[in-house]
């Protein structure tokens, strides 16, 4: 019967797709975990890479702690968002280093700051992984003290802390 034949074909096509999907996701270096981290309350949302999460930068998961570091004054805040976002408002004294333009900009950044410079990266909060990516890039080029402020600019602004 036509219907039975169609159902059989659909099962084959879906089966091949699922098998292929899982195989490619397992083998690909860009594969993701089967279950991601999508709970805002638990931290930054992320699909999670399939491999282990070693080599992740340290996180600052409270705005108050970020403010304490800010008040100490020796920490450099680095804004991972686009130039546009940065222009519309940022943490006072923060340097703009859009993660999408890292390669073009890192040269002059390296000229200005020594590798031991304490750095805190941030972006648009817990729905945004750009600050993590930027932190990994900075660690890769030799900076030794890099942390991620995960609540980012929206978290900072919501507390009524100064912006510029």
């Amino acid at each position, binding site marked *: 019967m036509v219907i039975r034949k169609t159902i059989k074909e659909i099962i084959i096509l879906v089966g091949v*797709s699922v098998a292929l999907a899982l195989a490619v996701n397992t083998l690909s270096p860009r594969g993701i975990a089967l279950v991601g981290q999508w709970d805002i309350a638990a931290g930054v949302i*992320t699909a999670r890479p399939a491999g282990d999460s070693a080599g992740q930068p340290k996180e600052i998961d409270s705005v108050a702690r970020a403010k304490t570091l800010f008040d100490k004054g020796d920490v450099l805040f680095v804004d991972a968002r686009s130039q546009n976002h940065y222009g519309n408002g940022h943490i006072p004294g923060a340097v703009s280093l859009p993660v999408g333009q890292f390669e073009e900009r890192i040269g002059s950044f390296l000229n200005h700051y020594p590798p031991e410079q304490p750095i805190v990266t941030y972006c648009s909060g817990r729905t945004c992984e750009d600050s993590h990516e930027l932190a990994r890039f900075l660690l890769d080029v030799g900076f030794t003290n890099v942390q991620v402020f995960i609540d980012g600019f929206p978290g900072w602004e919501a507390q009524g802390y100064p912006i510029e």
Partner: protein
Amino acid sequence: MSRFLSTDFRAGKRKGIQLNKMQQSIKNNSWIELTARWILGITFIYASLHKIISPADFAKIVYGYDLFPEMFINLIAIVIPFLELVTGFALIIGLYPRSAAIIINILLLFFITVLAINLIRGHEFDCGCFSAGQSGYTSSSEVTLVRDVIYFILGMQIVLFEGHRRSCFGRPAPRHQ
């Protein structure tokens, strides 16, 4: 007066039948069927590639619709692109074309529902990230919705088509049409 009415009525009826004939000929036109298969096939393969290359970005887009349980977001992001790829490929080579079109139309109904729900409740997700802007998801929900409806109609032609399908995998073309 009654004569006019009855002529009008009959004319209308004839027109109705002609329209049906036209629909029939569209439905069973094998060139339209082949074109529809190629358009859907290429579109779905193309659409799947971005998502296959960066599953993490696609997962975030799935999250952004704010409709799916956290447990399933990654699985949806892993499997859907390959459903698109495999069915798109099946349509182009003509392997199980009706079944592939049924799967594609189920996917399209799913996309249309998701987009419509979020348009109606005014939900728009902006993570403020770089990756989202770079992955080629630039058109508005409205445009995507209309496009999906058109694809769905093309898919229906393939599903409802009765007759010999052109250039299908594993089946010789008939001598005469």
